[in-house]
């Protein structure tokens, strides 16, 4: 079994402090249907709430923060799941059922499992 991160990209969403009913029902449905492979996951507040942190000069250096997301792009990271699947085919099939993949895109990346 391999652990995959499914990173959900799409248009900037402001769901307030909860999701619009329709969105949440789609995700609730996915959560139920894919419960066997979902190992974790969260939705994120919009990028207007993001802060980028850099330490200038490496460990122990000056902490510099910037308001806003790491990169200005049309598609932003809106959330993610951790999926435990037999192989990439199963991970792709699962990612295709994430509602975010229907309007934006889901990037599937294998997770390094440090031993």
């Amino acid at each position: 079994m391999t652990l995959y991160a499914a990173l959900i990209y799409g248009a900037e969403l402001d769901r307030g402090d909860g999701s619009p009913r329709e969105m949440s029902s789609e995700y609730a449905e996915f959560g139920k249907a894919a419960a066997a492979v979902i190992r974790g996951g969260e939705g994120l507040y919009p990028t207007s709430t993001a802060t980028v942190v850099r330490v200038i000069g490496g460990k122990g250096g000056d902490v510099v923060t910037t308001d806003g997301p790491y990169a200005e792009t049309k598609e932003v990271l809106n959330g993610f799941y951790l999926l435990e699947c037999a192989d990439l085919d199963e991970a792709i099939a699962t990612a295709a059922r994430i509602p975010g993949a229907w309007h934006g895109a889901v990037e599937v990346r294998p997770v390094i499992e440090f031993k």
Partner: protein
Amino acid sequence: MTSPDPAHAALVRLVRDEGRRVLATLVRHTGDLQLAEDAVQDAVLRALDTWPRTGVPPQPRAWLTLTARNRAVDLVRRESARTGKEAEAVSLLEPPANEPPEMLRDDQLRLVFTCCHPALALETQVALALHTLCGLSTAEVGRALLVPEATMSKRLTRAKQKIARAHIPYRVPDAAELPDRLHGVAATVYLLFTEGYGRADGATAADEALRLARLLHGLMPDEPAVLGLLALLLLQDSRRSTRFTAAGDAVPLADQDRARWHRPSITEGVVLVGEGLRRSPGRPDPYVVQAAIAACHALAPTSCDTDWAAVLSWYDVLLTVHDTPVVRLNRAVAVGECRGPQAAMAELDSLATLSGYPLWHATRAELLVRLERVDEARTAFDEALALPLGEAQRRHVAGRRAALVDEAAGESRHVSGLTGSRRASESIPTILG
């Protein structure tokens, strides 16, 4: 390491052929493409070293498999001694029970579907097909695809890493997925073929594509896409020796020496087209239909005998199963031959989405020549030349434009010298997306 000794050359070929098959099995045994490659390469080198002295063993494949397995076990042991992990080596030590012969067939198929997995970029699939399925070295793959060896080496390493880390599976897709995945495999093999077919020095890529198409046909003899792919490749390849001049210039279809077309390939291709059509009666496979179009050209004794009405009908069929702007462009050429340049121009004008495609401009230019609209033809040739084109095609289009200028400079608007020969069809490769 070329040897004039034919016995040695045969031995090298045997070792290489068997090595490819053994690799597919070793991938199953080890679950690791890189490890399997390293182990098989070692076994191949040993065979080339010892067999000339000891003679070829009675079962060369079994010898190579065993030697490669032992080598893989060594490599895993060495690695586990380094990292302190022991578990992996143990499973490899168990020699598999007697494996039925169809297991090898399945091993090869699994590897085909791994190398042509849609999660890999198409250019990566083509490189992996040459390297892993055809057994070409990194340097040979680089030469065949015109990519520097260092770049190719990186690309192949990254691909194998992705297969291992993302767990791209080794398995034959189930019946529901198979048609789609098979079209992916066919597209890879066809791209490999066109990579070689489009250049005077591209024999390696074209040969290996044909070999892969034959392998697929051996593994899945009933699949229409496979029948169509092999037929299409054979029919196009039958013209290979006539497609370029000694200087490497492209020779248009109409001007090729048909006596030198390779008859056995044509015969085999036509039989495969028939079989492919019988096996997909309701909805013909796009590769089968493209092969049928290629057969119309291959079977015409002279260019003037081409049954353009049949070609046009096949394009109409192709549109029902594979409707793309490029197919419509090819169809427009057939329309031009059947109904005249004016009708073809109308078709082309409706395909303005192709204005970034050089062959759309080149085809327009040829039609404008036939309509004696010389100035517009010249502009269209220029627009084609301003876009990226293969070297041979660029020279061909530039030559056509130059011929136009020569005639115009002779104070003559008469362009029958150009209109007399019908050139457009060969300059447009049929491409399946």
